[in-house]
């Protein structure tokens, strides 16, 4: 370690001025009868980034707060932290090795896309039904299992993309049937405590799916074959492939950043499906109806939308998105009936970070968690602890964001 005192000074500066700005700014704005809704976040970020230089004018003039100020301050905070870290630990690969950082970021983004895609389903269910599905990870697991058994047992030798389609159909059907039988009584007033009921009944589904698959498929880890083999290429030439070099199982960019075929394929499929989902939600009547129900179910019913059908569709679609995430990742990870537990927890972190019920928030949250987990694991100075804290990195960021913005990035105020 180099100048670790400097790093801790930076951290102390950020913490002190950030806390002072976050606590005092809303009070001053409130006393001046100004909008306080964004004052806490703006005070914290401007305070941490500039200290008294930014805070005193902010308190004195009380200007109208702009999002760009938060963004600029956040970037400045990150730059300060990076500078302090680089001085404190100059031998860290995150400081001394640019290709290492690029690899971490690309891998983090790739995983983030898939995390975001999975969390999108959970957010969709919450935004429309108001139910937090604890069975989300089990849909993810079922999706992967369907692809494996479809391509190896039910239709041996068939292309995994067909398995992917089967996974969509099966997880959609499970979601729709479950919603119709177990969740609809909630909206019809047949359940005394709907919130608790929603939690318990989705927990029940999670246990049922996990142990049902365990009983039917066994507990041995399985893995589907690669969906596609990359063509063996060298760009600009095979002799000197400095731009792109591919083997059947991996892709190398700039002779530095390596990406595995299964992850890249999974992320590409997730992006494609995300595009289709957005098209569906924003350019079809059913999609608009779904969004209408998420905003105001009663008003939607007035204009002829049946909220019960939309609820069933949302739950089925949410489950299908989780199933699809699992279906794309079964070629990258070993799959067991308990594989969904960690992704469920991660999805909860992501949707709270992005803002409960917000679809763009869920996707952005997924990207953030993917990059943070990758970067923190790669950069924590002590390699003997870096990987042991993977689930904690997301939690730390979630706590910080909730302190500054309790609704998450894109959450709606109730």
């Amino acid at each position, binding site marked *: 370690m180099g100048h670790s005192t400097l790093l801790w000074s930076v951290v102390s500066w950020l913490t002190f001025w950030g806390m002072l700005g976050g606590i005092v700014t809303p009070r001053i704005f409130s006393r001046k009868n100004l909008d306080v809704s964004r004052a806490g976040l703006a005070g914290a970020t401007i305070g941490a980034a500039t200290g008294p230089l930014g805070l005193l004018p902010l308190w004195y003039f009380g200007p109208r707060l702009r999002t760009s100020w938060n963004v600029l301050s956040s970037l400045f905070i990150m730059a300060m932290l990076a500078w302090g870290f680089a001085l404190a630990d100059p031998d860290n690969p995150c400081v001394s090795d640019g290709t290492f950082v690029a690899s971490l970021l690309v891998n983090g983004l790739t995983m983030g896309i898939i995390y975001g895609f999975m969390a999108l389903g959970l957010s969709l269910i919450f935004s429309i039904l108001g139910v937090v599905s604890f069975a989300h990870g089990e849909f993810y697991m079922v999706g992967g299992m369907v692809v494996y058994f479809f391509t190896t047992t039910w239709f041996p030798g068939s292309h995994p993309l067909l398995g992917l389609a089967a996974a969509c159909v099966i997880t959609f059907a499970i979601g729709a049937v479950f919603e119709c039988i177990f969740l609809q009584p909630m909206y019809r007033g047949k359940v005394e405590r709907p919130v608790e009921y929603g939690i318990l009944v989705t927990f029940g589904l999670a246990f049922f799916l996990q142990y049902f698959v365990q009983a039917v498929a066994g507990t041995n880890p399985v893995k589907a074959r690669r969906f596609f083999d990359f063509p063996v290429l060298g760009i600009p030439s095979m002799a000197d492939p400095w731009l792109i070099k591919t083997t059947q199982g991996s892709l190398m960019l700039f002779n530095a950043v390596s990406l595995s075929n299964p992850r890249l394929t999974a992320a590409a499929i997730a992006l494609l499906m995300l595009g289709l989902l957005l098209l569906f939600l924003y350019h079809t009547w059913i999609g608009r109806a779904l969004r209408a129900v998420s905003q105001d179910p009663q008003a939607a019913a007035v204009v002829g939308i049946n909220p019960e059908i939309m609820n069933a569709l949302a739950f089925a679609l949410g489950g299908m998105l989780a199933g699809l995430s699992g279906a794309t990742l079964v070629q990258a990870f070993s799959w067991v009936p*308990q594989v969904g537990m960690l992704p469920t927890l991660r999805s909860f972190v992501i949707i709270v970070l992005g803002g409960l019920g917000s679809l763009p928030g869920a996707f952005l949250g997924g990207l953030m968690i993917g990059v943070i987990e990758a970067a923190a694991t790669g950069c924590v100075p002590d390699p003997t602890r870096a990987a*042991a804290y993977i689930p904690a990195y997301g939690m730390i960021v979630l706590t910080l964001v909730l302190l500054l913005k309790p609704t998450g990035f894109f959450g709606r105020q109730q």
Partner: protein
Amino acid sequence: MRKWKTLCFCAIICAGVLALWSHNLSAADCPIKIGGLAPLSAPGAVTGGEAMRDAMQIAVDEVNAAGGLLGCRVQLVMGDTEGLPEKATAVMEKLINQDKVVAVGGEYHSSPGIAAMEVAHKYGIPIVFAETWNDGMTAKKYPEVFRVAPLSSEVADFQSRFAAIVPGVKKVAMIVENTDFGRPNAEASVKVLEKAGIQTVMFPVDIGTQDFSSIIQRMKAAQPDLIIVIVTGEASYNFTQQAADAGIGPENLPMICDQTALESKAYWTNVPAGNYAFVMRVGIPPQRFNDVAKSFEKTYMAKTGKKAAESYAFEAYDSVRILMYAIKEAKSSDKKAIINALEKIKYVGALGTITFPYGMNNPPDKNNKEDKWWHQFPEPAITMLQYQKKGQDSTQAVVVYPTSYKTGEPVYVKKK
């Protein structure tokens, strides 16, 4: 008349006392129940757990087919530890208090093993561990705890000695499970490797970790010459294949994989790019099998459809079979009698002739031995195998170390 009545009463009392005494002598709560511990759900090493369950059941079935024990049928009551200490505690409490087992065998992971051991000690129930390597388990010198598996420090010493003879190895990276199995094993390996002048770098991860991509990038940046995987279950498959995807897999760099790689079918399904992996095997190599090992393997293959029995299957088989042998020797299923019989036992099993030379009657410290040798089978054979063909079965893998068991030369892949 009164005299006769008194005599009859005394006779009945004597008969009752005699019956009770003979009941204790021959044990006799039928069936005799033996507990079996194994991880049968994730995050435990399910592949290993299922193999152990089948092996323990075979041991019990064989004894029942031969007429049972002390005139009773033997019943194996399985407990799923899931590889988690808290589960192991709950399972042991159930086995002892609800199922009334007289002894317990099996278990794969050390952390649940340590938890199970404490419960066994609390109730004085004998337990013979099959595949838990943690030195501290026997070092506690509990009268109830026995082990047929090797010591972690011995295994670490073996794999480190092998790593040290791999040409050109100056730096070893270890991916280590953050458990009572992983940590001590890695620390012991570090000591041996550093003594041999080899630099080490350790990357601990939580049990059940799925995505290793960032840590693999970090490991790659450390530029190791050899990688040792001290992670069990499907996590070891995930790591090995992801390392292969990143260009530091067994086909690019010498890699000593975890024992779950011995499950050939699961290994090749999950790690298609896993050729040239080295993997350690505990137990006598097939070419030196005794009659018990041959007979067990034949039954095991018929039962499971596998091409061979894994090392942990042999250990699980012996862990339960030795308990039944001890019950037979003790002529009782009383827990103290079983423990006494185990202390004196000389049992020929699938792992060879098993004895526990150091215990209450012959404490290790009186023999200048460390406490870890308490109730420890001192001579389990260990070999290093290497897959040298894609899809190869572990039984056909080449034994490359030690020289006494060697069946072929190792292939050392060149670092790219």
